[in-house]
């Protein structure tokens, strides 16, 4: 009797061992199956992304430093104000002063590539979501998962698919930074005034015409905010992706920490912050411009 009772208590306190199911095992099996059957596909994807990445990086490395500083100054001036342009140009020059220019360009290439892939995937998915309530129901929890799942969890499969280096970093970064642009594209299109959409249809517009001539232009400010968020999140993945051997500012921070070289880690860390601030302010400025001209 006493024995029985304590058994009961055990079941109440700890989850019964009988009911045990390891989902992860099946995920692992699935990944292995993908690897076995779709290696050709991943190889092709790998090559395309690598080609794009290397060319972007080569272009940025080729670009004289002062051209980029000038571009940042002009963008800051155009979309914010003169003082902002000067400030951003000064900050960007600081990175050069730290001696981190080349590493920064590598990082920038990864961020740019990731953002472009995210937009190519995210905007159409966002549009699809806004049109189909069922798609929205399926995709929303996936987006939640993408944003909250610790990135190491998909960094490992990414390595298995693409090997070490920049491509798996791009893959992981895309997964992490994709949700905002999807969410905000969806939101932007759903928030277009119902009357405006009705007006478009009342003139005999097709679905495509309504999307291209009315819904997307109307949603543009919101989509721009999504792009800004996506870029920021891509940048924040830089350090994490350095753990699979990606060169760049993140790697500099990582090796600074592991060798307890505070100065080295700080310079690289500050450079990431500078990059983030410049990209954020300029893209936010562009988004605001669209909002005002509405």
């Amino acid at each position, binding site marked *: 009797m006493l024995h029985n009772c304590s058994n009961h208590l055990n079941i109440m306190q700890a989850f019964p061992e009988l009911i045990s199911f390891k989902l992860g095992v099946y995920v692992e099996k699935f990944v292995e199956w993908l690897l076995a059957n779709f290696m050709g596909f991943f190889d092709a994807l790998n090559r395309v992304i690598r080609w794009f990445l290397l060319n972007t990086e080569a272009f940025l490395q080729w670009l004289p430093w002062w051209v980029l500083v000038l571009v940042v100054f002009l963008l800051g001036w155009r979309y914010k104000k003169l003082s902002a342009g000067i400030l951003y140009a000064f900050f960007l020059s600081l990175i050069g002063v730290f001696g981190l220019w080349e590493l920064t360009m590598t990082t920038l290439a990864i961020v740019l590539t990731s953002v472009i892939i995210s937009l190519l995937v995210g905007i159409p998915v966002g549009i699809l979501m806004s049109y189909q309530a069922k798609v929205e129901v399926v995709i929303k929890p996936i987006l939640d998962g993408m944003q909250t799942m610790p990135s190491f969890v998909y960094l490992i499969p990414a390595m298995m698919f693409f090997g070490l280096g920049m491509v798996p970093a791009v893959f992981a970064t895309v997964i992490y930074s994709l949700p905002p642009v999807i969410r905000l594209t969806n939101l932007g299109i759903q928030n277009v*005034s119902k*009357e*405006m959409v*009705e*007006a*478009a*249809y*009342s*003139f*005999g*517009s*097709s679905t495509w*015409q309504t999307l291209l*001539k*009315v819904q997307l*232009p*109307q949603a*543009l400010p919101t989509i721009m905010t999504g792009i800004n968020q996506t870029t920021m999140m891509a940048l924040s993945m830089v350090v994490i992706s350095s753990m699979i051997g990606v060169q760049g500012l993140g790697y500099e921070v990582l090796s600074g920490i592991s060798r307890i070289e505070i100065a080295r880690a700080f310079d690289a860390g500050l450079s990431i912050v500078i990059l983030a601030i410049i990209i954020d302010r300029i893209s936010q400025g562009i988004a605001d411009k669209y909002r005002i*001209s*509405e």
Partner: protein
Amino acid sequence: MTAKIKVENLTKVFNGNYKTVLKRLQKGESKEQILKETGITVGLNNVSFEVQEGEIFVIMGLSGSGKSTLLRCLNLLNVPSAGSIFVDGSNIVKYTKKELKEFRQTKVGMVFQHFGLFTHRTVLKNVEYGLEIRGVPKEERTEIAKKTLAAVGLEGWEEHFPSQLSGGMCQRVGLARALANDPDILLMDEPFSALDPLIRREMQLELLDIHARLKKTIVFITHDVNEAFKLGDRVAVMKDGVIEQIGTPEEILANPANDYIAEFVQDVDKTKVLQAKNIMFKPGALVSIKDGPKVAIREMRDAGISSVFVVDNERRLQGLVTIDDALKALQERRELQDILIKDYYTTGPETSIEELLPLASTTKYPLAVVDDNNKLLGIIVRVSVLSALINGQTEKEE
């Protein structure tokens, strides 16, 4: 006149299958009951009506009465659950996607309550929109759009954005955008209710003016009785997805089909709707110009009145004789011709009470209602004008 739009047994339900509520509708269950038990909203229930070519047809009802749903069925922004809509004889409910697009591009234009303007486009680009969708070449559509904008009084505003315009101007853009396509039919969904009263009145007059010039068939939605009666050639009153009554404003005012409509039209400004012909009555006494003063006196005595209109043998109004003058003429052996008074007011049958009011209160004689040939149609006394204002019932029955 032929029927431009013919709607037959139109039913529209939201959030569910039409067939599940069909039986309930046939049994006459109420909208609320159906919603409560099945979760299905009945927007329109077996609605039928016709709109004549060139007519302003007003659909009036409170919010939730189904009037906007009905309007949106006419260009299939709402797809009916059952019933047919014939426009120029062809059933638009059966249209293919392509036919529907063409129908919307060429036959029907829509104006929205909150304008529905594309805020990312300039005024000109807004007006061009329909033409752009139709694939009209750029120069041609710019020219048409500019002309249409000028026609609604917005010359010089082409390059502005809608956010820079006042509400009244925005709705002019909305109107121009619908007109630019030169559709036969204009659907207007409470187009003026978001405007302030002064601008609204201005826009109403302008719409009447445009209608007179372009002869479009207009289906106009409003919740405002005064607006409905002012604009509508005919008015349909809706409640709970059903048309309760269709008729000219005068018919509805004079004979409301039920208590609901009577209440609805209670606060209508009758002075603007009722016209002389609605409140005039046949004179109780009438004297021919050939008669003598003796006949005139007898007529007045029998009818118990102190003055009488004199007409010729074709009923054309000649003048008025008072009892005092007639008595005097009898003594002096003079003819009616010599004692006719002319200082009474005459009015046409279509004059509104609003305009009659000052006349009625200043003259001591009845008002004579005459047609274009000066033929006497009836008379109006002061009391009939005033009482028409009080209860809206015409004095015809007297």
